[in-house]
């Protein structure tokens, strides 16, 4: 009697775990901290209705890439750590299309998914070891590795280096 009971509970727990995992496989876990980034549009994983919301931890969990480069807005070499666009799009099952990136100050720029390559741009959440406040281009800044490729030093790329990023809409 007792043996059967524990077996049922174990089964139930397994079921729950599976269900949770299944729920996770189907979508993402929910953000626990402040939501920094909201991705909408043609994505395969969501965790809030049609959108996917990410907090810092979640972003850190997806990817942690470091870029060291100079920029035209800063002085000297900057250390930037963030999630690479490639990893993010991969995590969200985005292979093609355009990322419409919007900033807190309503700045909008369209970034083609083709930019999201290995060794390409990152959504930086840490500048020189510290998180960026809103006053200093934070919390998220799409930075390209300008110094690694001369092609990244173009006006178009500069416009795509959106700071104070908070929303991305994936458009096909």
């Amino acid at each position, binding site marked *: 009697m007792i043996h059967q009971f524990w077996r049922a509970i174990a089964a139930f727990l397994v079921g729950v775990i599976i269900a949770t995992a299944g729920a996770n496989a189907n979508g993402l876990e929910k953000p626990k901290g402040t939501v920094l980034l909201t991705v909408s549009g043609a994505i395969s994983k969501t965790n809030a209705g049609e959108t996917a919301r990410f907090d810092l931890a979640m972003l850190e969990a997806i990817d942690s890439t470091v870029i060291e480069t100079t920029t035209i*807005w800063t002085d000297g070499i900057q250390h930037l750590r963030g999630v690479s666009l490639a990893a993010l799009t991969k995590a969200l099952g985005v292979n093609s299309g355009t990322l419409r990136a919007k900033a807190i100050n309503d700045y909008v720029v369209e970034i083609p998914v083709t930019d999201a390559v290995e060794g390409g741009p990152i959504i930086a959440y840490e500048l020189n070891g510290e998180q960026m406040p809103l006053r200093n281009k934070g919390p998220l800044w799409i930075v390209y590795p300008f110094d690694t490729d*001369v092609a990244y030093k*173009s*006006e178009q790329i*500069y416009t795509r280096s959106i700071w104070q990023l908070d929303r991305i809409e994936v458009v096909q």
Partner: protein
Amino acid sequence: MSNTTHGRFRAGLTFGIMAGLVALCIIALMSIRVVRDLRLLETANSDNLQWTVTQSEVEYLGMLVEVDRARLRETSDLSDLRRRFDIFYSRMATLKEAPSASALVESEDYRTALNAAQRFLDRTVPLIDGDDETLRASLAVISADARDIRQNMRKLASTGLSEFSKTAEERRKDVAVTLFRLAVVAIGLIVALALSVVHLFRLNRQKVLRQKAMVQTANRLNTIISTSLDAVIVCDAEGRILEFNRAAEIIFDRPAAGVIGKNLLKTTCPPELRSGFLDKLRRYREGENPRFASRGRMELQGIRRNGDRFPAEVAVQVAHTADGHIFIIFLRDISAQVRAETELVQARDQALAGERTKTEFLATMSHEIRTPLNGLLGNLSLLHATKLDGRQKRIVENMVKSGELLLRHVSDVLDITRYDTGHLRVDHVPTHLDRLVRDLIDSQSAIAAAKGTTLSWRWIGEPMPWVESDPDRLLHILQNLIANAVKFTHDGHVSITAESMHTDEGGHEVLFRVRDTGIGIASELRATVFDDFVTGNTAYDREFGGTGLGLSIARRFASAMGGDIGLDEPDGLGAAFWVRIPVRPTDPIAESTTRKQTNDLQTSTIGLNILVVEDNEINRVVACEMLQAAGHKVTEANDGKAGAALADRTRFDLILMDISMPVMDGRAATRAIRNGGGKSAETPIVAITANAMAEEQAAFLEDGMDGVLTKPLSDSALAEITGRYAVAESTENTPLSDADHRHQTRVTFGEEAYEKLVGKFIAESKILIAELSENGTLSNAQIERRCHQVAGSAAIFGATAMQQNLRAIQSAAKGDDPAAMAVHLSELGLIWEKTKLSLQP
């Protein structure tokens, strides 16, 4: 290229190079600049400044609006305000920090605005960062403060704009300059390229021209070599054939393709000669000088493809090329030439053989005809000497005349044949012209007298009595001329003159003229009178007898002697012939040898013991009869062997030896007698021959003969021979002088010359006798010579006794016989006195 062109070329080249280098430097520098500019253009060193500056104003206004909204709203939600403030702050921070914006700081207005904005931010930050309460309370202040910097923000934007336009302009200018530089560089490069293209074109054209020239030359050379009729073969030092021209292909009957690369000797040289050449090649390779190369043409043998050998004329040359030595062989197939040579040689031999045959024919003819003639005439002569009645005598005389005429014909024809076949030999012996002519005149005097014609002869100018000439031929010519003159002159005069002259070349010649006052020569005959078989009127022919060959033979003889014969223009009556003969004056000789001695000159010959060796019975009998009639004792032998045997056993005074006999011929017999050491080993041997060839006669003399008689024999010839070789002469039988002879001389020379000569002769003789009387004055040789001289002179005046005496002394001196000399010397004085007397007119 001449020196000046070369110099100019070098100067031009140097200048060109310098200019080129300078241009290249400029282009390089420019290119570097362009590249740098392009690289700069490659990257954007700033983003849209205009955007940033205007965006700063927008975000300022956004913040301002939010501040006002927050004041109006009652809610305590100030997150939007804070956000807006942060956004504005971030923008201003960017403006401050971005290096690209540093250009803006140049402008003072910008600086002022920026500083004002910065002050506002600094003041407001603590309020924003504070709690909501503090913030709400200070909203009015913030709003007022913010409004204060409104103008500054505007100014910020406008200075940004001007800066932006300036930058944009500068950038455009930069781009323009860069493009310009790029264009210059490009053009410079293009020009340089164009120049080099032009240069290359020229070089190419030069090259093409040179190539054409080379090709032309090569073609020409090729044509020369391929059209050469001589084979031209080139091979390397190992003997491998490198080139084989068309002519070689033809000669060796091998295609060039099949021969190139093969060994030369194996293909062209007969196997038996190969080793020799291989050896030579090897020695050459080892450094010896090639004896076969560069040594002119050699005659070698080549071998054709089918194994035929052929004679070849080969010349080998060595050349040094970059790849080593090569041999160039020029080869000519001379089989045709060799064949031609052989044929020529054969033809020549045939011709020579033909000549020999002709000569033999002549000799045989001569012999065959003369021998029976000899018999005929000889017997006639004997017959004439026998007792005949008048009629018989006449018949015999006619026969003799005919026979002699026949003999003359034969002799003439033989002479002509001999001359025409080039066998006529001309003697060069000392000849006494005076005597020759005088004898001739003597022989003609009877005939002339019968016709009432007189003969005279003299020298014109300085006489040149002794000359080197051919007496027989000269005699023949003069005899012909004189006989003709006498023949055609009736009751007239024939004058003969001789004149000695100098030739242009410094020699001497004698010009004889025979002038007659006879019937002359018809004008139509004048041109052809020297031709063969040309006689006068046929009527005269028969009367005078003649072959018409006399003058033509005379002409032949004259030209054989190097002279000429001709006919003078007639002036008045008769004809005038002349003969010019080149001669050499010479010393008088010991023996006076006029073959034709006049019958008046009597030689006393007591009966000699004579051996006649002759195989022909008739001729032998004739000879014997003649000799016996002359009082000699004759022994006969009918062949050489018998004759030689007889000669060995018995000592004869004279041997007459026929040449062509069976068993042993005359020459062999003579040699046998001479070498046999028999009784007649020293006896004079005279050849009797029908063969009158000079070479043969010389051969007889070499065999040991002393003289030659030609058949048919005549009394006079025999008499002369016997007289000549008579040993014993007695002075009692010697007449003192020959008056007739003297008279003839006088007539011939003319009184004046005769007296002069007599004086000379007397003077000569006196001196000689004086010298001879003193013993030891003269040497034997001198005695010989002097006696000979005077004897000759004595002969002219018919002083026969003196002549013989002097001759005897001469022989004694020659034979170094003082006893004999003394004997004759003792007689000389008396003889001289007598002679001198006889000379007085």
